[in-house]
């Protein structure tokens, strides 16, 4: 929850030409849209300038020339142009907007596809929050760059050029004088940039305030117990005071911006009036011409000052694009080798041969590890949390591959097999079972997508999940996951057992829950497990004595090493690590089971 409130870093890298090209290429996949909106927006900008020119002609050739016929013709032209322009406005909004959505769609697809292929090690390194913002906010920014960003630039440039063209046409001397205003406007653009920097500061402070709120609300009980309200408020006041100053400053600076631009334009208008008035007397300029100049100069101001904003946004978008591309370009560490085969089944022996493995080179997890698992054997992995039990499971699933040595399945090094061939034949039940949003039936069917309803129910029955599912409000059609009913860990495990049973895997892997599950559910889980263990090679990260005892072989993992290996009896006799683990577990389980104080009464406050 809390990492949502993490400050999103502001990237302001210099423009990277390659990234922009790549972004443009994303847009060019839909080149008709791109071409269409660039053309229509250019036409719109031209039409805008032409409207002003038409107004000039209405004044000069219509009113002042006292010519109602010309006036009528001009008005018709004007009207037709309005309609044409409206069409083009629709065109550019629709084309640019759709293009933006299309590019976002494409980017999300590319990222999601890549994410499905990436190896588990990538997800171990990369926080989910980071990936989420690539797919959401960064994608949106790039989509906006391709559509509205490119649009703003095109509009601005066309607008300025068209206005300049018409002004030069009306009176080139005055146009050149007006051009002198442009450097002043560049100064205004700098001013705008400064304002944007101020707002960045405001955003930073804002996320700090959110953080402070978050902490105060989640820790409110501690705050009260320690009676720290005044001190907290004092600290918070400092923060909000800073925020007030920054936000006020940013706000009045931007309130100053508009008048500044207007003032520059007023100076321009003054110049036009003064020079135009003189030229008018000489007969070099018409009243309509003066009016047109005033309009053009007002129109030109906007695109120029907008450029500062567009530039800043583009910088951000390019940074977003770089991050997106870094995700798309990530290479899965584990892929099918050329010539990989699907043997049709991965039953049979599984052999670890001199396997070395580490996540971090300095801390080896497995060294020269050898293990021969016969078909149908059940291997229990026990040991303290974080000792490396899941490493062996991860290697079996080929979520990771050995750094040295090999693992043999179906008679060959499993690197010669297709990833899909292995992973589609593994059934897995996790410690904190993961259910997807959707119905119970859909979650069970995840094990085999083409299973019939009868098969789903049959699997649920075998897993011992049928009873409780039937008692849910809508039975198998009950929604689970986010926004659905709350299921206990035990119930979720039953569902994922059913899912694994339905998959009819060649290898079964289970990570038992450590948290206490009520006795009845526990018994059901045990029964469901038995169905899966029957005749199937299984690896179980075991926490329950009953599970451990029934395994064919027990591996005791400690500090990333296999400390002991053998049957229950052998290991008990050895009186080593396993003996200690076992006796501690025995005491805990018995206490938990029989101690009335471990029970839960309906909790209230």
């Amino acid at each position, binding site marked *: 929850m809390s990492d949502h409130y993490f400050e999103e870093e502001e990237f302001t890298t210099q423009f990277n030409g390659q990234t922009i090209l790549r972004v443009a290429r994303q847009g060019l996949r839909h080149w008709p849209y791109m071409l269409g909106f660039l053309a229509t927006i250019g036409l719109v900008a031209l039409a805008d300038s032409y409207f002003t020119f038409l107004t000039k002609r209405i*004044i000069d050739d219509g009113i002042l020339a006292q010519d*109602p016929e010309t006036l009528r013709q001009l008005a018709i032209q*004007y*009207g037709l142009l*309005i309609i044409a*322009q409206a*069409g083009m406005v629709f065109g550019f*909004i629709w084309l640019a*907007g759709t293009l933006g*959505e299309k590019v976002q*769609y494409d980017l*999300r697809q590319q990222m*999601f596809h890549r*994410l499905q*292929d990436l190896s588990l090690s990538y*997800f171990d390194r990369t926080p*989910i929050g980071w990936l*989420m913002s690539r797919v959401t906010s960064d994608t949106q920014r790039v989509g906006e760059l391709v559509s509205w960003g490119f649009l703003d630039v095109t509009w601005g440039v066309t607008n300025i050029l068209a206005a300049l063209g018409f002004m030069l046409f009306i009176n080139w001397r005055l146009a050149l004088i007006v051009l002198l205003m442009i450097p002043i406007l560049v100064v205004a653009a700098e001013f705008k940039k400064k304002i944007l920097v101020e707002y960045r500061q405001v955003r930073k402070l804002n996320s700090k*305030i959110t953080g402070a*709120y*978050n902490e*105060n609300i989640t820790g*409110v*009980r501690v705050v009260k*117990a320690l*009676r720290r*309200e005044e001190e*907290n408020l004092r600290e*918070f*006041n400092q923060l909000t005071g800073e925020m007030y100053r920054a936000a*006020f400053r940013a706000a009045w600076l*931007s309130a*100053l911006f508009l*008048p*500044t631009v207007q003032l520059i*334009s007023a*100076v321009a*208008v003054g*110049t036009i009036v*003064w020079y135009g*008035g003189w030229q008018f007397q000489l007969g070099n300029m018409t*009243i309509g011409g003066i*009016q047109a100049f005033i309009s053009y100069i007002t129109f030109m101001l906007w695109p120029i000052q907008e450029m500062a904003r567009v530039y800043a946004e583009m910088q951000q978008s390019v940074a977003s694009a770089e991050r997106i591309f870094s995700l798309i370009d990530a290479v899965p560490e584990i892929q099918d080798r050329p010539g990989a085969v699907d043997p049709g089944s991965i039953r049979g022996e599984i052999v670890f041969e001199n396997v070395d493995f580490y996540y971090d080179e300095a801390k080896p997890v497995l060294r020269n590890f050898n293990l021969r698992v016969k078909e149908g054997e059940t291997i229990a992995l026990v040991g303290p949390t974080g000792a490396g039990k899941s490493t062996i499971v991860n290697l079996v699933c080929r979520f990771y591959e050995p750094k040295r040595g090999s693992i043999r399945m179906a008679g060959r090094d499993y690197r010669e097999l297709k990833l899909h061939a292995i*992973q*589609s034949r593994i*059934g897995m039940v996790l410690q904190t079972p993961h259910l*997807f949003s959707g119905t119970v039936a859909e979650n069970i069917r*995840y094990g085999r997508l083409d299973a019939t309803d009868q098969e789903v129910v049959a699997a649920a029955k075998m897993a011992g999940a049928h009873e409780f599912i039937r008692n849910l409000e809508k039975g198998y059609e009950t929604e689970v996951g986010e926004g659905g009913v709350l299921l206990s860990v035990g119930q979720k495990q039953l569902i994922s057992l059913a899912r694994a049973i339905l998959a009819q895997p060649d290898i079964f892997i289970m990570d038992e829950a450590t948290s206490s599950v009520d006795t009845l559910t526990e018994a059901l889980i045990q029964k469901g497990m038995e169905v899966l263990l029957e005749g199937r090679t299984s690896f179980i990260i075991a926490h329950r004595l009953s599970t451990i*005892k029934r395994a064919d072989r027990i591996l005791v993992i400690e500090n990333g090493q296999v400390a002991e290996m053998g049957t229950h*009896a*052998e290991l*008990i*006799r050895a009186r080593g690590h396993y003996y200690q683990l076992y006796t501690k577990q025995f005491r805990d389980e018995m*206490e938990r089971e*029989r*101690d009335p*104080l471990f029970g*839960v009464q309906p*909790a209230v*406050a």
Partner: protein
Amino acid sequence: MLTGFRWIYLIAVVSVGLAALARTGTYYLLRYFVDDVLRQEGMLGLVPWVALGFIGLALLQGGLTFLSGRMAARTSEGLALRLRNFLYDHIQRLPFAYHDTMQTGELLQRATSDVDAVRRLFAEQVIGIGRITLLFLVNFVALLTLNVRLALYSVVVIPLVLLLSLYFFKKIGEAYQAYQEQEARLSTRLQENLTGVRVVKAFARQDYERQKFEQENREKFLRGRRLITMHGTYWPVTDILCGMQTLAGYYIGALMAINGTITPGTYLAYVGLVVQIIWPIRNLGRLVAQMSTGFVSFERLSQIIRVAREPLDQGRYAPPEGVQGDIRFEDVSFVYRREDGSGQNGTEPEAIPVLQGISFHAAPGQVVGILGSTGSGKTTLVNLLPRFYDYTGGRILLDGVELREYPRGYLRQQIGIVQQEPFLFSRTIRENITYGVGREVSDEEVEAAARAAAIHEVILGFPQGYDTLVGERGVTLSGGQKQRLTIARALLKDPRILILDDATSSVDTETDAAIRAALKGLMANRTTFIIAHRIQSVMDADLILVLDHGRIVQRGTHQELIAQPGIYREVYELQARIEEELEQEIDQAIHREERGAVASGESLERVKE
């Protein structure tokens, strides 16, 4: 709410109107320039003055706009400042019962985005609507003075545009919300895929996931396009309406100018002014729609503000030398009233009895052990002491004075709490230790406390020692380490009464001894309440209370309790029985192995047992 800002805000609104007036003046000047300067003989000398006039009016207009912006910013930012500070304090002073029912996320949302919505209401929407309205009024009056008939012709479509704008922005708000909802769905789908990456891979369901994602992704695209299409329709349609209206005015005006009904200067002024009243109307709907969400936010904030705070300083008895720690419960009961978070009082809150008939006495320095299962009421019982909740029946006496007489804030300073899963703040270790101690603490004192809590060595091992940040941006502490930090904090605070809330139950065995020793040091000379569900934690207490369903079912010392039948003895004897059974189990395992050596094919059978 606007107290102190009324005048400033009024200035902001009035300057907006005056700025509009100055802008209108510009067009009058244009008319004067054309009719009375350019088109008259011998007036050329006035040209520079007119030019200066334009600049002067622009200065006036700019100055007023800036003034308005600055005053609006002062109001809205000042208001936001005030709201933020008030809410922050308000939230931390709301009673426990309120926080029990309110979700963190929801409160946070109100404190941040709702406050921002209210800020924008005053910074942008009210001013924006005022600007458009005043611009319209001023310019319309100006148009009327130019020529009444022309003015009336020029506003024919305005009611239509206004209605369209209101309708459209309401619709677009809905479409936008649908788009956002889809965005949320997409995020959920993605998040599920990422958190469930092991399941996806283990079942090799990548293609299925891709398909599912594509559906949501496509839906988002479709909704996005729908939004775009709406915008793409509204703007051109109003373009045509406003454009045709402008054209009609231009044309009629031009005919009038040819006829001589109006002067060319008047026509030019008209052309400039009419633009100011037609086009801004298109945005009015947007502002109105935004304003209504601003009001909704405002209402939501008011709901929180209306909830009564917990008074910290109310109470007449607060001896400056502190309390002794003599605590007596006399037939205390507590009924919990569950309030629904909405704060609306339609139905009577549900009343749940949590504690009943609790009576006992703890002399200063004594240790009281409270044993019970989860939900038996043991945590609620100790929560009554700092007055996190107020008991609803009987009485609690502290040093012979009823607890209600003590101000809450005072009481809480006298009580130290060490929890099983302590909450730490994302500050440095030092700040966490001194958090809430309420006085200046020297570095030596902090270190001494840390040593006594057996955490000093651990802290020195961190990259920045005592200045290491705790949490996401710094070190992650284990449960035992967190607990020892709070023990150090309690040592510094040096309270007369101590509550150990399940502080010894689920800690790694290795650190257990260290914590036990640290706790022992902390408990010396303090009236201590130990909440636990294991006998080992309370065995040494002077008085043990066994709680069940909110009642005391057994009481006495360890020796007394094992001498009488009841839960306590049962649990105690359980340990011994378990040890016995363990012996048997181990014997059996070894024995079986001997048997198994004879018949090696037996392992399969064992699986089936």
